[in-house]
């Protein structure tokens, strides 16, 4: 009897946790297949082993954004954290998710907060692009035009669509042909 009970007590611990590299391999497969819900689950598995793994955190946040889970949501009356809450929960770690946070705030129409968040970031083409979109939504079409024109050298695909929209909204439709040159 004794050895049997020994074996029984061993079974729960005898299953080793899956190797991190295996989890990342499956995570990558889900990302490639755009299966973002599964990707979040895999990232969570990595985080249950290494709670501060930067790649897993980034994958989780991006997967939630790509899955349109920006705000918290309910599954069977249980609240699940959306991308913004997840970003906030990792705020104490030295991982820069400022752009992601600003984007989430923009998507949730918290436009002033999004601008404040962007101000703390380096002004590169990504942050300027997001800023232009926020300004447009705030009704500041003139300011949006200015930022879009700053961005014109960055060769962002389809940027001219937003620039034309801003010009028209700003009452500068006469400048549209020149902008499209």
């Amino acid at each position: 009897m004794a050895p049997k009970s020994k074996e029984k007590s061993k079974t729960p611990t005898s299953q080793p946790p899956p190797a991190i590299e295996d989890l990342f391999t499956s995570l990558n497969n889900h990302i490639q297949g755009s299966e973002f819900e599964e990707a979040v689950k895999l990232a969570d598995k990595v985080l249950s082993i290494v709670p501060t793994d930067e790649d897993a955190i980034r994958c989780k946040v991006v997967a939630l954004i790509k899955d349109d889970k920006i705000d918290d949501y309910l599954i069977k009356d249980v609240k699940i954290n959306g991308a913004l809450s997840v970003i906030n929960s990792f705020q104490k770690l030295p991982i820069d998710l400022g752009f992601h946070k600003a984007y989430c705030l923009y998507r949730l129409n918290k436009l002033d907060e999004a601008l404040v968040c962007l101000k703390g970031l380096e002004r590169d083409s990504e942050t300027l692009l997001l800023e232009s979109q926020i300004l447009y939504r705030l009704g500041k079409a003139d300011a949006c035009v200015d930022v879009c024109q700053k961005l014109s050298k960055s060769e962002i695909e389809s940027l001219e669509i937003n620039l034309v929209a801003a010009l028209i909204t700003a009452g500068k439709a006469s400048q549209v042909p020149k902008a499209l040159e």
Partner: protein
Amino acid sequence: FPPAFQSIPRNPIVLDLAYHCIDFPDIENRMKKKGGGFMSRINLWGTKS
């Protein structure tokens, strides 16, 4: 009747281009190495030298 169709101005289209700036990190080096047999070791030496 019916009244003639009239053209009206529509709101210009704005695209969410910032969405495309958000992408997954490169996790290639976190994944299981492909192969893992004798041949891959030769490759490893090859890349190191």
